[in-house]
């Protein structure tokens, strides 16, 4: 199963005239966890939103170059197929407010109109909630609204919602930035667990977090990838002065 799953080739992205990603070239291996780091505004979010083409939802946002998933250009793929292949978790937990916990966990099926039998539904809900280690906490209140959960629980529910569709790649945009330390460590454990089955790209500002969970780290600076390497290497032996400054906190 090894090999490249995602490849960015001479990729550029714009908001109107403003170029926010410059000539990105990046290869991501299957089942790797890749941390995307860099100072605020350097284009991390934009990059991962380009991978599942959420970028183009913004008016005036454009992109050029190629992103290949399984050797297929995402800009030539059907949007629905692409987005089912790539799950996304946002910075702020965003469970569907009109749905129960149960419904949120299988929202991908419900909203896409994929018919499942009752037992299949139960199974998918239980499996995905167990994988995000939420099952024990919510199994008695599955029919309460998802928005009643705590922030950390909501975020895990959102991850469950994303993985219940069995994507191949999981995009996480600062998933723990709005959470307390305990919830954060739960989600980190979860990522470690998920890595067996998924390729994970995670945006984070937290150096320790990147060190703990990622195999590789991409360091973004002003819309460019300055350095992309094995995480340990980046942390112990950064090639670039800017990276060095960033990880040692001597930035700006």
């Amino acid at each position, binding site marked *: 199963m090894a090999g490249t799953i995602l490849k960015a080739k001479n990729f550029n992205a714009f908001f109107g005239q403003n170029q926010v990603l410059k000539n990105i070239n990046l290869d991501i291996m299957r089942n790797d966890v890749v941390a995307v780091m860099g100072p605020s505004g350097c284009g991390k979010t934009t990059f991962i939103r380009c991978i599942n083409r959420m970028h183009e939802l913004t008016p005036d946002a454009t992109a050029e170059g190629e992103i290949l998933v399984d050797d297929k250009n995402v800009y030539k793929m059907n949007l629905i197929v692409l987005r089912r292949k790539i799950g996304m978790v*946002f910075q702020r937990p965003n469970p*569907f407010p009109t749905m129960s916990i149960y419904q949120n966990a299988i*929202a991908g099926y419900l909203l896409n109109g994929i018919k499942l039998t009752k037992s299949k539904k139960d199974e998918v809900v239980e499996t995905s909630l167990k994988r995000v280690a939420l099952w024990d906490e919510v199994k008695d209140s599955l029919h309460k609204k998802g928005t009643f959960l705590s922030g950390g629980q909501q975020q895990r529910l959102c991850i469950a919602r994303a993985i219940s569709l069995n994507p191949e790649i999981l995009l996480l945009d600062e998933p723990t930035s709005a959470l307390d330390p305990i919830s954060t460590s739960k989600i980190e454990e979860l990522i470690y667990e998920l890595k067996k089955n998924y390729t994970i790209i995670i945006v984070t500002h937290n150096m320790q977090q990147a060190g703990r969970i990622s195999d590789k780290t991409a360091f973004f600076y002003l819309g460019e990838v300055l350095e992309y390497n094995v995480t340990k290497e980046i942390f112990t032996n950064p090639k670039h002065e800017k990276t060095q400054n960033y990880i040692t906190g001597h930035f700006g």
Partner: protein
Amino acid sequence: MTIEYRNIRNKLFKGIVIILTVICTLPLLLVLYRITKEGISAINWDFFVNLPKPVGEKGGGIANALVGSGLIILMASVFAIPLGISIGIYLSEFKKTKLAYFTLLSVDVLQGIPSIVIGIIIYLWVVKTMGHFSAVSGSIALSMMMLPAIIKSTEETLKLIPDTLKEASLSLGVPYYRTILKVILPAGITGILSGVILSVARVAGETAPLLFTAFGNPFMNTNITKPMSSLPSIIFNYAISPYEDWHKLAWGASFMLIAIILVLNIITKIAQRKWRVQF
């Protein structure tokens, strides 16, 4: 100017403001009082099940107007709700387009058109084409009057729904139309519904646009291509008649109408407070 004078002037002004405000509430109280007093005594079983009777005969009712109002408003809602929600979605989803600007302008203009002018228009468009007055033409006129409230409540509710909800759905590979119909609309349902109910409450008492469309009918009629009676038109016709019996029916009909409008208003109030979707 002494401080004393300034303080007195300050208090006096506040007093005037309060008095004028209290005076403003008098009409409502007086109208409600009179209609309740006269209306309740007019209401009995006959009132609901009988047709209006010729002057002098006892036991007349307004069954035809109740049925007529119900049918006309139901039909108007069927026309206006999907159309209004659709336009509201367009306005909130494509707010920056030129068309959105002109559509919003049209909504404002439509809201300001006197109801009698709507009556003229539907007379020219529908009644003249059909060759005669009809309930359905009345419904079309009322639906035009319902549109602005429905469009605005939809637009304003949807505008407040965070974009992240839409993105969450789209990122699951859910097509745009399903995202709107199954995520965005349900999240805004309370606001949209209260707009719909308020618009129903508003047109339930509209008389002018029905004068030359649904027209009125002294008999029971459920055929929507024929003239049909309604609560407001029966109030108008009987109120300006010289007969005591008919005045009584008009008070009863007014009481019914006000009661319906009050209930609809209260329902929206409760809905807005209790069933709001939490994000």
